[in-house]
C-alpha cells in the first residue's frame, strides 16, 4: 500500500481580508531549522506594503469604533479557532524553530492563552489607564486611551508564533489596525495565522500579514506618512536596522517601540505593549452650577 501523496499548501499574504500573492510575483524558499525545504512564501514588495497600509487605514475607523466588548468577543473567537487548528501550528512551529512536538505544543498553548489574555483586556485597559482628573475648576475632565492608528509590527525573528502573537494581539486589542511583517526565516506560522483570522469575525484589514525580507518591507513602511506607529521587535537581530527605521519613522513622528531583549515570551507580558500604541485624549467639560443663584459671587 503506497503512502498517500499529501496536498501542499500555497502560502499567501493576508491583506485587507483577502489572500493575495505578492504583486511582485516573487516567492522565496522557507526551510526548517535543518535546512529542509518547507514551502515557498511570498516575497512582499514595497507595493504590497503600500496596499497593506491602505487596507489597514480603511479598517481603522470601524475597528477603533467597535465596542470594546465586541473586540473582546472577536479576539476570544480567534483563540477558539486557534485551538481547533492547534495540530497544524504545533507542526509549523516545530519545523520553524526546531522544537520537539511537546516543546512546540507548549509554545502554541501559550500563544492561544495569550489571545485569551488580551481578549479580556479590551474592555478594561481604559479603566486602568484612563479616568477623571480632579482639576481645580468647575470642569469635568476625563482622560481616555485611544488607539494610535495604523501600526506596523515587525514580528520577532526567532519566536515565530508565541512571539508573533505576543506583539500582534496587544496592538489590535486596543483598536489599532496592524501590518505585520512575519519572521523572515520562519514566516509560515504567521501566514497560517492569517487564515485563522479570516475565519474569526475579525474585519478584513485589521491585521495584514506580509512575508519576505524584513528590511525591504519595513523600510518603506517606517517612512510611510499614513502609518502612525511601529513596533521594532523583529528589527533587533538585524544589524543597524532598528536605528535606521527609527530615523525614518521621525518623518511623521511615528510612535516607536524599540526592540527590547525578551528572554521568555511565555512570561506575563504586562500592559506595556498596549500602552505603547495608545494615545491619551483628555476632554474638558464645564460643569457649572445648577443655576445662577448658585453662583459663587
Amino acid at each position, binding site marked *: 500500500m503506497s503512502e498517500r501523496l499529501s496536498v501542499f499548501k500555497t502560502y499567501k499574504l493576508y491583506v485587507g481580508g483577502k489572500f493575495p500573492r505578492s504583486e511582485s510575483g516573487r516567492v522565496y524558499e522557507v526551510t526548517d531549522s535543518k535546512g529542509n525545504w518547507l514551502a515557498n512564501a511570498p516575497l512582499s514588495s514595497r507595493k504590497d506594503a503600500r496596499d497593506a497600509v491602505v487596507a489597514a487605514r480603511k479598517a481603522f475607523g470601524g475597528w477603533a469604533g467597535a465596542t470594546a466588548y465586541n473586540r473582546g468577543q472577536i479576539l476570544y473567537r480567534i483563540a477558539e479557532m486557534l485551538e481547533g487548528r492547534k495540530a497544524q501550528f504545533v507542526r509549523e512551529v516545530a519545523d520553524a524553530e526546531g522544537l520537539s512536538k511537546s516543546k512546540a505544543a507548549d509554545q502554541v498553548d501559550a500563544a492561544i492563552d495569550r489571545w485569551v489574555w488580551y481578549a479580556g483586556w479590551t474592555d478594561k485597559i481604559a479603566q486602568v*489607564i484612563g479616568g477623571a482628573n480632579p482639576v481645580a475648576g468647575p470642569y469635568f475632565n476625563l*482622560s481616555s486611551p485611544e488607539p494610535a492608528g495604523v501600526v506596523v509590527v515587525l514580528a520577532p525573528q526567532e519566536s515565530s508564533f508565541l512571539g508573533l502573537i505576543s506583539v500582534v494581539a496587544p496592538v489590535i486589542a486596543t483598536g489599532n489596525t496592524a501590518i505585520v511583517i512575519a519572521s523572515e526565516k520562519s514566516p509560515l506560522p504567521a501566514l497560517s495565522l492569517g487564515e485563522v483570522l479570516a475565519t474569526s469575525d475579525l474585519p478584513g484589514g485589521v491585521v495584514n500579514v506580509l512575508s519576505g525580507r524584513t528590511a525591504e518591507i519595513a523600510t518603506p513602511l517606517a517612512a510611510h506618512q499614513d502609518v502612525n506607529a511601529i513596533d521594532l521587535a523583529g528589527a533587533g537581530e538585524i544589524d543597524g536596522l532598528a536605528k535606521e527605521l527609527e530615523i525614518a519613522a521621525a518623518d511623521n*513622528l511615528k510612535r516607536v517601540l524599540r526592540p527590547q531583549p525578551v528572554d521568555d515570551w511565555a512570561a506575563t507580558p504586562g500592559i506595556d505593549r498596549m500602552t505603547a500604541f495608545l494615545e491619551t485624549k*483628555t*476632554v474638558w467639560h464645564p460643569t457649572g452650577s445648577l443655576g445662577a443663584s448658585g453662583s459663587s459671587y
Partner: protein
Amino acid sequence: MASAFEYAPAPESRSVVDIAPSYGLFIDGEFTEAADGKVFKTVSPSTEEVLSEIAQAGEADVDRAVQAARKAFEKWSALPGSERAKYLFRIARIIQERSRELAVLETLDNGKPIKETRDADLPLVAAHFFYYAGWADKLDHAGFGANPRPLGVAGQVIPWNFPLLMLAWKIAPALATGNTVVLKPAETTPLSALFFADICRQAGLPKGVVNILPGYGDTGAALIAHPDVNKVAFTGSTAVGKQIARTVAGTRKKLTLELGGKGANIVFDDAPIDQAVEGIVNGIFFNQGQVCCAGSRLLVQESIQDELMDSLKRRLSTLRLGDPLDKNTDIGAINSEEQLARITTLVEQGEAEGAERWSPACELPSSGYWFAPTLFTNVTQAHTIARDEIFGPVLSVLTFRTPDEAVAKANNSQYGLSAGIWTEKGSRILAVANKLRAGVIWSNTFNKFDPTSPFGGYKESGFGREGGRHGLEAYLDV
C-alpha cells in the same frame, strides 16, 4: 471701541523685580561663566530694551552640567520619596511667595501681559510643583508596578512662550520621580529659569539636581546628543522635534515631544454664542496666539457665520493691546523679531492666496515687536494659513455644513494637539469629541490647563503626556 470711559494706565510696578546686569550658567549649584566666555543679550520684546547679558552654554558646559547631574543622580534617586517631596513643596511655596516678582519678570522677558503671567502662568507653575511634589512618595501606587525607577539624567529643552510654566512641566515630574535635570531655556526668555535656579538654592536643593544652561539651538542639540543623557524632553516646533527624534534614534534615551498644532475650534449653530465668542478669543489671542494648542482654525457652521463674525469682530474691537505691564492689557508683544517676521510672512501669504484679512482699529507701539489681532475669512483647507502653524494672533475662519464635515476638516491636519467644540447639545459634544484626533479637547471652553490634566498631542504634535499621573511615565523606567 472708543469710549468716554478711558482706562488710565495701570502699570504693575517693575521695582518688585531686580534684574542683574549679567547672569551665568547654573551648574552644580553655582552660577558660572561659559567655558568659552560667550554671552548673549536678552531683550524686552515690548520695548527692545536690553534686560541682561546671559552666559551662553557651549558643548563643554553641557558636558560639565550633565556630569554634575549624573553625580547628583545617585544620591537624589536614593533619597526617600518623602524627602524629595519636601524639596518640591518648598520650591512650590517659594514660587508662590515670589509670584509677583516672577510674573513681572516673565512679562518683561517674554512680552506677554501681566494679567496672564499673574493669573495664569504663575498660579499654574506653583500648582504643578505642588501636584508632583505629592507624587514623589506615592510612585508605588501610580500604576507602574512596585518601586518604579527613575531614568537618570534628563535633558530638557523648553520654548519661549510659557518659559517658567514649561520649566515647571519639565522639572517637577522629573525631580519627583528621582531624576536629575539639565534644562535649556529658550534664548529669548532665559531669565525666569535663572531666577528658578536661585529658588532651588533657597530651597536647599542638593547641588547638581537642577542645572540651567541658557543658549541657542546648538546648546540644545548638544544636550540632547550627549551620551550620558537618559531622557530627552522637548517642547517646541515640529521641525526641531523631528530632528531630535532622529538624533535619539538607536539610543536608549526615552523621548517625549510636545510640538506644534493647528487646533480646530468648532462652533455649531446651537452654541452658546456669547461664550463661544469668548472661547474663540481666548483660543487664539491668549498669549498673542503663541500657544501650541491655540484654536487657530475656527470652524463655524455656515448657517451662523455672519452672526458669529459680527459678534467676534465687535469683541475684537474691545481688545486692549499695549504695555504688557499694564494690568488692563489683553494683547502684549510678540516674543521676538524673528517670530514677528514669521507671522508677517504667513499673513502676507494668506492675503496672497486670496483670504480676506481683517483687524480691529488698533494702534501699535512704535518700538518693540507687535502684531494686531487678525482674522482671515474665506479660508479653505487648501490655504497655507489653514495648514501651517502661525504661532501668532491670527485666526483662520473656515465653514462647515454638517458635524461629519466639521470632524473631517478638523482632523485634516498633520497635527493633533487640541480642538474645541461649541454646542449646547450634550450628545453632540461626546460624539464629536470621540471622533477628533487630538490629545486635548475643550468642549464649551478653551485653553484650560491644570496639573492633574494630561496634555499632549496625536500625530505630528508629538508624543507622551505632561501632567497628571500620565506625566510620570515619561520620567520612569517603565
